């Protein structure tokens, strides 16, 4: 018996930056509690870091002016694997997916490279006019 036997689900929609970031961190905090992981649990900390990067990108680019649809967010934990799903209405993101880590002088452009390196899988698909992101990590 361990945290692998436990399951967890969280759903939310949001549009604002501060609200969205708060909700995503709150969901991770609830997951920690639900599956009995401490604040310093390494794999969950890495997952939260990746979620902060992708979630931040989605909140910045996924809610263009004139689009009323909020960002949809879901967090699930089952059989030791945590999966976060985010859907947004921003422009297609294919061109950015394989971006390398920029040099030390650069003040931006590290988010996707960080997320890719911390997750077991970072899924992306364009579904009509919606971007769907899927972040997967075994804890």
């Amino acid at each position, binding site marked *: 018996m361990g945290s692998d036997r436990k399951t967890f689900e969280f759903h939310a929609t949001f549009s604002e*930056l*501060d609200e969205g*970031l*708060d909700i995503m*961190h709150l969901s991770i905090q609830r997951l920690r509690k639900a599956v009995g992981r401490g604040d*310093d649990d*390494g794999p969950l*900390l*890495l997952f*939260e*870091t990746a979620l*902060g*990067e992708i979630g*931040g990108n989605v*909140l*910045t680019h996924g809610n263009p002016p004139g689009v009323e649809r909020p960002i949809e967010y879901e967090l699930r934990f089952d059989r030791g694997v945590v999966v976060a799903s985010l859907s947004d209405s921003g422009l297609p993101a294919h061109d950015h997916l394989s971006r390398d*880590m920029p040099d*030390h*002088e*650069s*003040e*931006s*452009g*590290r*988010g996707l490279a*960080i997320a890719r*390196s*911390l997750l077991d899988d970072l899924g992306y698909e364009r579904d009509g006019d919606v971007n769907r992101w899927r972040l997967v990590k075994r804890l």
Partner: protein
Amino acid sequence: MALEVETRQADNGVTVVAPTGRLDLAGAPALKEAISEAVKKDGPQRVVIDMEGVSFVDSTGLGSVIAALKQLRSGQGDLRLAAPNQQARVVLELTTLDQVFPYYATVEEALTGF
């Protein structure tokens, strides 16, 4: 959760900037502003960012630290980080920015010899 930033002067003249909260996409502008204010007031200088109160760092937060470092070094100043938590250290090491920002376990250590 807004980032709150306090600034103080250490005995050796180094400016200590202490953010509290998440140094992320939402919090980064507050750190940038605090460092710009300090530079505007006293000119380019040596700055220690006390990370003890920072619970989480993302790449935009790191970007604000890089911006501060560039601003300070362009005027012969410099920057050190103190007391980053486990998550911040992971991000610094992953991005290899730990080679750019020397980081110290405590503010006192960061102030020593600075």
